[in-house]
């Protein structure tokens, strides 16, 4: 780290950022919470289906437009009053400066492209229709299309569904178009880790990660220049002898032309992406690898996680998208924002798990080290969950609570007065706009906007902080967290 202070070429920069959303209302019923509740009370299913959105509605949803880069996060504060789901962005496009929102039929095609073991079957007419649609997609190749086009008759799908271990795949909520089944042979037929419930998660995660990475490559650089991929998703790929064994990173790179790359996965619950960014920056600074990409697909299990709150308020079930992200870390190019490796904040094993203790480690300590006040950070990127999704189920406004917590440190340190707390939150925070996709929601949705503003000279710095609830896995009672400061590039490439 010391040497990079005098050697600009070794500074790690964020060269590019891409995001991807797949609008998958047909999969909401398979999310962890909806599937458990529907099994207990089948009369819920028509209610779930009746509260699903069409694709054009999901595209025009303001937070989704912020996510893909067509709106600024502060537009949700200053231009579009809540409830946002009652406001359709005029002339909204599926294409954004950071990526796209894809409809579910096309996304099933991407899942089929990712399916190398015949797990997903699509009905033949549907498959051909999807292949025809994907022909015009700028990131889909002829080789991809050949994998999609071959379907099977609907009768065969129905016959497969007679097996209780097969999961139906729907579009428009109720139209059967395919299924995911348990693999056969090699002991897979009795391996509880290879149930279709897990395999569809893995396929969806890989597919959304592949699309995010392809968008990143299109906007940022050549696939063959990527040396190393760091996965940071929430899926657990593996079999009975290697549960969660992983390397989704390499699987995502395989289908994105990253022929020179290897990779591995970072696991740390929701804060894995920020851990991965710190590791990526370190690999670049140390010159072990020149170009490192952090990538993650979406969390299938979290679809419809708070659907009961949405039903109670008679609002659409807004947890209907899978999200992917990909971030390219490279040596200094004289333009791209710099990850300051002397700014890393970390929640240590001995830190304690109160919000106060976590935030002190992630925010206050690193800023003290850098000689910066809390008010000298332009924006803080924290858990960016869209409050419209979380509040109906009693989970509160997560980003606002985080911003008020950070601002409270500024109060206690006499940087601001108590009555200025709301103003601090407005200036240094932003409304939550991310789908509740766990790791994806955790700070990184802000990265694209921050990079854009720093390149444009409209922002000096942003602090990224992420927290993880390690105790959910019942292994340790610990919490986790990590942070870094992203800074506008001040110099010209050496």
């Amino acid at each position: 780290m010391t040497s990079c202070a005098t050697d600009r070429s070794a500074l790690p920069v964020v060269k590019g950022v891409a995001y991807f959303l797949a609008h998958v209302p047909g999969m909401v019923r398979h999310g962890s919470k909806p599937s458990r509740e529907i099994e207990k009370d089948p009369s819920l299913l028509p209610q779930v289906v009746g509260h699903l959105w069409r694709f054009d509605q999901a595209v025009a949803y303001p937070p989704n437009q912020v996510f893909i880069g067509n709106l600024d996060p502060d537009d949700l504060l200053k231009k579009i009053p809540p409830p946002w789901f009652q406001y359709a962005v005029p002339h909204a496009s599926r294409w954004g400066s950071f990526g796209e929102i894809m409809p579910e039929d096309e996304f099933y095609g991407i899942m089929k492209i990712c399916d190398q073991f015949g797990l997903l079957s699509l009905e033949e007419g549907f498959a051909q229709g999807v292949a025809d649609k994907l022909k015009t997609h700028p990131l889909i190749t002829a080789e991809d299309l050949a994998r999609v086009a071959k379907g099977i008759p609907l009768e065969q799908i129905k016959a497969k569904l007679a097996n209780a271990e097969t999961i139906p795949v729907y579009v428009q909520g109720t139209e059967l178009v395919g299924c995911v089944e348990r693999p056969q042979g090699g002991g897979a037929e009795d391996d509880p880790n290879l149930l279709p419930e897990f395999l569809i998660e893995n396929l969806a995660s890989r597919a959304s990660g592949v699309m995010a990475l392809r968008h990143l490559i299109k906007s940022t650089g050549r696939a063959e220049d990527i040396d190393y991929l760091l996965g940071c998703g929430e899926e657990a790929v593996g079999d009975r002898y290697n549960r969660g064994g992983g390397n989704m990173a390499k699987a995502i790179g395989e289908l994105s032309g990253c022929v020179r790359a290897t990779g591995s996965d970072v696991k740390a619950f929701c804060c894995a992406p920020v851990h991965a960014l710190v590791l990526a920056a370190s690999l670049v600074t140390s010159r072990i690898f020149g170009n490192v990409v952090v990538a993650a697909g979406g969390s299938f299990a979290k679809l419809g996680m708070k659907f009961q709150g949405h039903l109670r308020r008679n609002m659409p079930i807004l947890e209907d998208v899978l999200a992917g992200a990909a971030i390219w870390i490279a040596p200094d190019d004289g333009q791209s924002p710099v990850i300051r490796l002397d700014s890393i904040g970390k929640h240590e094993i001995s830190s304690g798990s109160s919000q106060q203790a976590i935030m002190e480690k992630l925010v206050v300590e690193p800023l003290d080290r850098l000689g910066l006040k809390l008010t000298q950070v332009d924006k803080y990127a924290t858990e960016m969950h869209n409050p419209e999704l979380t509040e109906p189920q009693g989970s509160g406004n997560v980003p606002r609570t985080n911003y008020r917590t950070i601002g409270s440190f500024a109060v206690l340190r006499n940087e601001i007065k108590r009555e200025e707390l709301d103003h601090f939150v407005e200036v240094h925070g932003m409304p939550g706009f991310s789908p509740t996709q766990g790791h994806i929601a955790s700070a990184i949705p802000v990265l694209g906007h921050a990079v854009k503003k720093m390149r444009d000279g409209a922002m000096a710095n942003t602090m990224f902080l992420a927290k993880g609830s390690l105790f959910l896995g019942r292994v340790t009672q610990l919490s986790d967290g990590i942070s870094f400061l992203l800074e506008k590039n001040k110099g010209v490439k050496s």
Partner: protein
Amino acid sequence: MVVLGAPDADSAELYAETVVNGDPSWAGPLAGVALGLPVCHIMEPEVKALIDPAVYKQHLELMEVALDVERIAEGLGRVRQAKN
């Protein structure tokens, strides 16, 4: 006695309602189950007075600044009043 730590008034009231009258969201195992338990929030003055000031300072002082304790207490007060 249930001591809540929810970070905003709406969720605190929802959880208080849950342990007094049953889960109003009908989302969990307490749906339709009225336990009628006494409930408070850890930052209400009466509870704060029971905590060692040094411990409170270390773990809770910051969040007391961050949270709207008055609104949280109002919501819990409503639930308690309805119960009585």
